């Protein structure tokens, strides 16, 4: 190697007056940033290895550490920014496709931040959720078009199979393999405790987690890893993954080095061989093909499980959703371009797809116009960051949201976006036993349950303010939304008025 053209992005700032040489930073850094100099009796650091995950910062007992972004700079250039120059250096060195993790970090507009909620004043009373009943329960699945009565006039239960959730939140698909056993256990236990569902992702279902089946969505993706009869029957719903927001049009690739032990068994892939999920499903080239898969999954589970079809939010998402709503699927899940991933080509992650807010509004509108909105429930994901994002998504027309990144952050993830290195210092996106054990599910599941119940309280507060006492009355209630700083076209697509109107 010649000259290294990359300057470290972060600097470890150690307050030597506070450092007591306990070496916890050294022991906890899987990237080997910290080391102890026995002769000088001081801790040293190699900034070039730091990914800014804050593990050392969080564990330092004397708060002697912080990580700062380097102020080392290129000659300022609004076009050739430092990050772009660095990427060229990396590729010139490696000759490889750039890989990234987690969601699109670029400064595209976040429409949730440009939408404001309504509240009641004078003429319509607001509701205090601490004093009055407030319903956050939702049912996902296709709804009947008509009320049927028997000859005595009694209601006939003509509901198809569906999902009941205590709050309109589910943990989105993250496979065992992309995240650790302990992370999966935390999600599964939290889903049961909170009365919601988590999603296996395309990694199969570990035998230890069959007990959480009634809180599990089992995924069938293009690689069909881990799919067999018991797996399909284990879950509360089956999700067909057509696309992922972080990498629309791209498949997945779990390197053979990670296919060991239980992961190999769970995925049903021989140890050491790469698990490659093709970009398309090789048996699906049309809505009719999709319909065949939907019905073969329904047939194999005796029509007892609702089928979800997950797609990435792309340009003509409304037309695609319309097709899916006619395919026999019970639920459509749409993943926006900010959705997370364990690894994706950087160019795809940062440049493909559309914002979930726009996709959701146009899908809901299209399905209503075509009179098929009740055929399906709509679940959206792709960077739902807090409870107000959920309230806004539901008012835009969603039935429920998927949270992935937010759930991982609750487990300790610091969004260092280095999942693809497999050395997650927080025990989440790694399979190294010494790192996996850093996430104790007893602690992790409680944090997830706390997050969901905190959001539930906030959703109730916001609904109460609007004078609404049930999620059902909020869904698609776009009059409760106003845009700020949006142009006519954006307002038209979102189907909302501008603030002040």
């Amino acid at each position, binding site marked *: 190697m010649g000259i290294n053209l990359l300057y470290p992005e972060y600097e470890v700032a150690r307050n030597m007056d506070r450092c*007591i040489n*306990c070496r916890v930073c050294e*022991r*906890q850094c899987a990237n080997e940033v910290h080391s102890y100099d026995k002769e000088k009796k001081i801790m040293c650091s190699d900034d070039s290895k730091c990914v800014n995950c804050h593990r050392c910062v*969080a564990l330092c*007992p004397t708060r002697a550490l912080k990580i700062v972004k380097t102020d080392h700079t290129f000659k300022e250039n609004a076009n050739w920014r430092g990050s772009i120059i660095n990427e060229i250096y990396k590729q010139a060195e490696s000759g490889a496709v750039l890989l990234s993790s987690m969601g699109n970090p670029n400064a595209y507009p976040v429409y949730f931040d440009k939408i404001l909620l309504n509240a009641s004043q004078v003429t319509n009373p607001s509701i205090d959720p601490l004093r009055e009943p407030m319903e956050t329960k939702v049912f996902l699945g296709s709804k009947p078009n008509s009320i049927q009565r028997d000859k005595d006039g009694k209601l006939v239960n003509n509901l198809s199979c569906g999902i009941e959730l205590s709050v309109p939140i589910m943990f989105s698909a993250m496979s065992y393999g992309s995240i650790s056993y302990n992370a999966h256990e935390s999600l599964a236990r939290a889903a049961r405790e909170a009365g919601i569902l988590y999603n296996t992702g395309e990694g199969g279902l570990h035998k230890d987690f069959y007990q959480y089946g009634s809180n599990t969505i089992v995924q069938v993706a293009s690689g069909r890893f881990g799919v067999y009869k018991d797996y399909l029957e284990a879950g509360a719903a089956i999700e067909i993954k057509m696309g992922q927001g972080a990498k629309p049009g791209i498949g997945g690739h779990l390197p053979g080095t990670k296919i060991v032990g239980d992961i190999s068994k769970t995925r049903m892939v021989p140890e050491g061989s790469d698990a490659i999920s093709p970009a398309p499903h090789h048996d699906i080239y049309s809505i009719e093909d999709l319909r065949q898969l939907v019905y073969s999954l329904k047939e194999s589970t005796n029509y007892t499980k609702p089928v979800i079809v997950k797609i990435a939010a792309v340009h003509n998402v409304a037309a695609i959703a319309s097709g899916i709503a006619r395919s026999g699927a019970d639920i459509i899940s749409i993943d926006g371009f900010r959705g997370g991933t364990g690894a994706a080509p950087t160019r795809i992650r940062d440049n493909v797809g559309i914002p979930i807010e726009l996709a959701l509004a146009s899908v809901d509108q299209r399905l209503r116009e075509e009179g098929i909105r009740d055929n399906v429930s709509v679940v959206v994901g792709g960077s739902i960051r807090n409870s107000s994002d959920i309230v806004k998504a539901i008012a835009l027309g969603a039935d429920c949201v998927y949270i992935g990144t937010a759930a991982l952050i609750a487990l300790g993830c610091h969004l260092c976006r280095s999942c693809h290195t497999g050395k997650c210092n927080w025990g989440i996106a790694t399979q190294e036993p*010494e790192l996996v*054990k850093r996430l*104790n599910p007893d602690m992790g599941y409680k944090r997830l349950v706390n997050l969901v119940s905190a959001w539930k309280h906030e959703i109730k507060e916001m609904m109460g303010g609007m004078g609404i006492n049930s999620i059902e009355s909020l869904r698609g209630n776009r009059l409760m939304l106003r845009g700020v700083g949006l142009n006519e076209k954006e307002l038209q697509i979102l189907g909302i008025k501008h603030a002040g109107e």
Partner: protein
Amino acid sequence: MKRVYVNEKWCLACHLCEYYCAFANSNEKDMVKALKDIVINPRIRVEQKDNISFAVSCRHCEEPLCVKGCITGALSIKDGVISVDQNKCVGCFTCILCCPYGAISPGDESVIQKCELCTNNIHGSPQCVKGCPNNAIVFEER
């Protein structure tokens, strides 16, 4: 009685318990002031070999060999907690030899030292438990 228990499954060998122990028994309010530039001598120690690690401190045995072996009555058991009366201790180290866990050691400022569940310092409850980042050390009734 509530005791300190360790679960090696969750122990990360980060050794923070040792530092929180040393800090707690320094009776200082600032960890930096207490532990800067010293070699700590904690009452809890992380034992580790290969990929297995766990913290060891006094088990507060129901039939403590250290108390039985103590020639001056400096070690006594009260409400399940085994404590040292430094005024009676003559430094024979019989207790150190007796303890099957190696949980008693010579002290820096006293003759011997052992975990007294932080009942003998300003904190009142085990600080190793409070400081463990992964709940590998717990203080509970079993």
